[in-house]
């Protein structure tokens, strides 16, 4: 690997560690209270969900509206397993089980539906997620419509923070590899992609499955942080909320997804005091941003340490 790339990786690791230390310090001195911590965890979980969805929509060009279904799979895996095994080991086992089930479900849903294009795919995946929800709603082990409560809390903010870093690294590294180029080629022109030897079904499915498994992780974290889950937490409106983050940030921009998740998380917290008017303001904000910034807040911009380092080096050379 080139020196430049290693430096960029080192920068990212440094950012992650500094962020962690910084939040820890702020919690310690009391700047971050339970209220803000709750906001940070929600933002973190939304980042995990939305980066995975952005991989599916922005990179592979497949319009999926069923992300909440996979989140439900992870949440219920954790909720159920933690009842039988209320230990840290149980928590991690439940995450793995959630991922495994999400992969199987994503393959079952993806093989027939990923042949559909555009809005047809959106509506089919939305339907599939609703089917998952109805099934959960009618199962005994999931406690039906009442849901599960008193789930032990293992997903504290440091755990969520680490998972945000992990899943983002997985998604971004996937997007910037052979696989990432293949799915972007399919997005830009499926016929041409096939003509250069790319198997569209295989690669679309790969992106879909990866996105689904990170959504399951987010579901597990959600279940063990909030400690209560019910089928209504994973409806169409929840899938749409994730879609909003992706589009607001800029389809295809992971930086944008982070930015939008933070902006929306803060906005939501600030608007808490407005009562019923909260959602009206939120709706107007959404419409206004879309009308004036149709490609999202950041468009297709992607922050890259490699580029920043390049510029830095050039300046140094110019100065020398």
């Amino acid at each position, binding site marked *: 690997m080139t020196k430049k790339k290693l430096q960029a*990786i080192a920068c990212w690791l440094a950012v992650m560690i500094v962020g962690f230390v910084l939040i820890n310090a702020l919690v310690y001195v009391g700047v971050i209270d339970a209220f803000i911590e709750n906001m940070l965890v929600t933002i973190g979980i939304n980042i995990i969900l939305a980066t995975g969805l952005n991989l599916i929509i922005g990179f592979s060009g497949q319009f999926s509206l069923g992300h909440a279904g996979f989140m439900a799979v992870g949440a219920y895996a954790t909720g159920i397993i933690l009842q039988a095994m209320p230990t840290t080991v149980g928590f991690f086992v439940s995450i793995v089980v959630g991922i495994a089930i999400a992969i199987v479900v994503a393959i079952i849903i993806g093989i027939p539906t990923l042949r559909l294009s555009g809005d047809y795919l959106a509506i089919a995946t939305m339907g599939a997620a609703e089917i998952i929800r109805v099934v959960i709603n009618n199962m005994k082990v999931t406690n039906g419509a009442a849901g599960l409560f008193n789930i032990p809390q293992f997903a504290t903010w440091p755990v969520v923070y680490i998972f945000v870093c992990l899943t983002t690294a997985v998604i971004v590294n996937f997007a910037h*590899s*052979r696989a990432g180029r293949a799915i972007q080629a399919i997005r830009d022109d499926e016929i041409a*992609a096939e003509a250069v*030897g*790319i198997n569209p079904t295989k690669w679309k499915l790969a992106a879909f499955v990866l996105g689904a498994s990170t959504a399951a992780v987010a579901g597990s974290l959600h279940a063990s942080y909030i400690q209560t889950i019910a089928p209504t937490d994973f409806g169409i409106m929840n899938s749409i909320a994730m879609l909003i983050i992706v589009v607001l940030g800029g389809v295809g921009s992971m930086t944008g997804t982070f930015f939008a998740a933070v902006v929306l998380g803060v906005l939501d917290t600030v608007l808490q005091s407005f009562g019923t008017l909260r959602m009206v303001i939120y709706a107007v904000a959404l419409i206004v941003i879309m009308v004036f910034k149709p490609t999202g807040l950041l468009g297709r911009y992607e922050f890259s340490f490699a580029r920043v380092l390049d510029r830095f080096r050039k300046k140094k050379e110019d100065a020398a």
Partner: protein
Amino acid sequence: MTTLLKVDHVSKIFGGLKAVEDVSMHVETGELVALIGPNGAGKTTLFNALTGVSPATEGTVAFRVGDEMVSLDKKKPYQVAKMGIARTFQNIRLFHQLSVRENLQAAMTHRYKEGFVSSILRLPAFAKQEALANKWTDEILAKLDLTDVADVITANLPYGTQRRIEIARAVATDPQLIFLDEPAAGMNPEETADLAHLIKRLQTEFGLTVVLIEHDMSLVMSLAERIYVLEHGKLIAEGTPSEIQHNDAVINAYLGGGVHA
């Protein structure tokens, strides 16, 4: 010489319309063959049938892999591409949001492997494979004079360059046979001359077998070693450029049809 591609009695029927009717042809290894015919003669339809985009209704197509002729019937386009047949499109189809380099590397997807784990953990194996893909890409870019624009998003490049990138992308699949669907369409005489030179190089320098669909007769006559003529979906003539130029059926098809060669 050995036969690289063998087309036997291929027909393509859309509803009641026979777009291609009972076409048989062969392409020898290392040849530069042209397929010509008036507009709507079924040339692109035939290309699509051969590359699996829209499979033939009847007939068989076989392609040489090593010492064997392997049937291409029922093969999907990506399988055909992996076997060593590349193509370009009449209406350029680039991955327009990707850079030139990424376009070429996407076309190499089947040529190297990056495991999921080594990609997401950025293991040394990943770096090695990326370096390999970059090396291949750099070679092609240098040979096709695209190094300067390597990191430019293809949508932002001029038309003539986009045509060249499409050919470069086809080369990146490491093919034996390359189909070029009207590569000179929309080009001025100067660009066409450059293109002719490039197509010749595909044959000589890259060692590729070339099948060319083209309307520009001077280009075809100067490049092709052998020409097939298609009219109303049927093959009406086959031969060297000079034979074709003097073939009555061909002259009739072009002049009688009101299309100026």
